[in-house]
């Protein structure tokens, strides 16, 4: 029986993926490629012997940025678009459960972002290889602190961060308007990277109200810095497997909780 539910989720996910491809969402890859190539040509020349480090840093930042933009703008429109275009009428009138619909849409968007990241990492590796072939004589010994394996580890955590942000976007799309959903999701992303600072700010504050609010944000909003190991990677600092494992478990639990709330919201939603 659960296999049958999974089949419906897969069907909706594949359709969502197909929609993203045909709506030309992957065109962002062209911009990404241009940024990485530009970084390799221009920024590399400004830093002596740090060319590859700069390319990786810019590449990872661009991956994260494009991913967050897709997660936010596509994720928040997942349910709204179905309602606005009234395609939800024929969907819900079929023998599918609302949670299958939400999970299918969510998985479809994750599939899109996964494909996006895979192509991005291939482009990044290609540029790095090409760059090292062309400018190998310029490399300073010991200037490559971050290998390809570490790079993949950083990308994996970016993907988990995007999974979490997408679940937040889906939640807002079930309870709020499209524009507010975008605003709230971006707000969660920004604050999510500042939660530790917020907690410290609260602790330093003399007001119990400020302290309480900061603590609330710290515990309720996701701590997205758990997924950001780019700085450590670029500086050549090692990040333990245990840290990555805990970050993934944290992300999975938070994402599950957010999706559960989205499903509850969807179950009560009326499509007038």
């Amino acid at each position, binding site marked *: 029986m659960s296999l*049958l539910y999974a*089949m*419906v989720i897969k*069907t*909706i996910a594949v*359709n969502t993926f*197909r*929609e993203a491809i*045909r*709506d030309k969402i992957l065109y962002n890859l062209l911009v990404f490629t241009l940024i990485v190539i530009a970084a390799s040509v221009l920024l590399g020349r400004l830093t002596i012997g740090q060319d590859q480090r700069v390319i990786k840093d810019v590449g990872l930042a661009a991956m994260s940025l494009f991913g967050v933009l897709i997660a936010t703008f596509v994720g928040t429109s997942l349910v709204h678009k179905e309602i606005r*275009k*009234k*395609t*939800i*009428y*024929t*969907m*819900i*009138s*079929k*023998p*599918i*459960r609302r949670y299958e619909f939400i999970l299918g849409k969510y998985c479809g968007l994750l599939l899109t972002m996964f494909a996006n990241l895979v192509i991005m990492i291939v482009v990044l590796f290609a540029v790095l290889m090409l760059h090292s072939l062309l400018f190998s004589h310029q490399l300073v010994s010991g200037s490559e602190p971050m290998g390809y394996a570490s790079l993949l580890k950083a990308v994996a955590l970016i993907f988990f961060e995007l999974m979490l942000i997408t679940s937040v976007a889906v939640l807002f799309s079930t309870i709020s308007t499209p524009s507010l959903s975008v605003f709230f999701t971006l707000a969660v992303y920004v604050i999510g990277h500042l939660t530790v600072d917020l907690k410290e700010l609260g602790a330093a504050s003399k007001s119990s109200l400020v302290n309480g609010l900061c603590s609330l944000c710290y515990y309720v909003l996701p701590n997205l810095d758990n997924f950001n190991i780019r700085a450590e990677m670029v500086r050549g600092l090692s990040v333990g497997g245990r840290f990555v494992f805990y970050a993934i478990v944290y992300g999975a639990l938070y994402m599950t909780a957010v999706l559960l709330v989205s499903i509850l919201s969807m*179950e*009560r939603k*009326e*499509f*007038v």
Partner: protein
Amino acid sequence: MLVVRTENLTKEFRESSLIRRHCVKALDSLNLQVEMGEIFGYLGPNGAGKTTTFKLLLGLIFPTSGTAWVLGKHIREVKFKREVGFLPEQPYFYDYLTGEEFLDFYAQLFRFDKGTRKQKVRNLLAMVGLEEAGSTQLRKFSRGMLQRIGIAQALINDPELVILDEPLSGLDPIGRKEVRDIIFRLKSEGRTVVFSSHVLSDVEAICDRIGILMQGRLQRVERLDEFLNVEVESVEMTVSGLNQMGREAIQSLGGQIIHDGSKTVIAVHGISSPIGEAAIPQILAAIRESGAKLASMMSRTQSLEDLFVETNALNGAAKDTRYKTQNARHEEEVPCVESGVLGLGS
């Protein structure tokens, strides 16, 4: 067996503005029964509550009170939807899909295997006359083609019950005939069809029974064969060259001049009574004697339009009950009652 049964099904929509919050009753204590194998026409002006009824039955919205069963299953269940097909009003679909992909997608939601899906898609495209458009994206479809592919998706699961919301709107005469033929075919296969329409002549030609909904209330349910097989109500004659003497003679015989111009239209009512029947030859003689010429003579039975207008008049509805809200509905303000999935009645 009853395919659809509703018990005091009621739906209120909450609407709020900056100043106040109120509810509008879109459907008021609907008690409707649709029998297996019949074609049921659901009529009513815009905003009467037809689409709201369909959405309630299919779980798109939840009743404020009352409840309903479809194919013997409560509307809260999902299982009955395996046996139901639905075409929404002015359907919008995933326009990035081709005709074949679109139908295959819906077939997958019913968990059909690949071979069955392929067969179904081919048959349905042929049935709605879109074989040539199978590999065309829906965004390139005309309005009529979208309506037809919409009907095809509603039939993808060979449903026992087909609910069609305004299936004839936006179609040219040939398209309408094709849809009518599809509905007849469904009936001949023993399926039940419930559909709403504004095209009364089509409803009259297709339906076994009709229900008229006005301002959220079901006003009447009639069997069309019983209702339309009544005796001749009146006779209308069109004559030219009728002089004043002829007019007076006709009026004295019970004829009513309903239009006077280059041609005169005379109506004779109460034709089923012996007096009314006897008046016809006398009026014809009066026309002949006055030197006028008879252009045409038509008998009138009660039509669905008459029934509709009469019901509307009895209901005391405003001349134009049309409201343009997101989901057109009539505007009767009522105190808000909590609704939702848990707000179902017994």
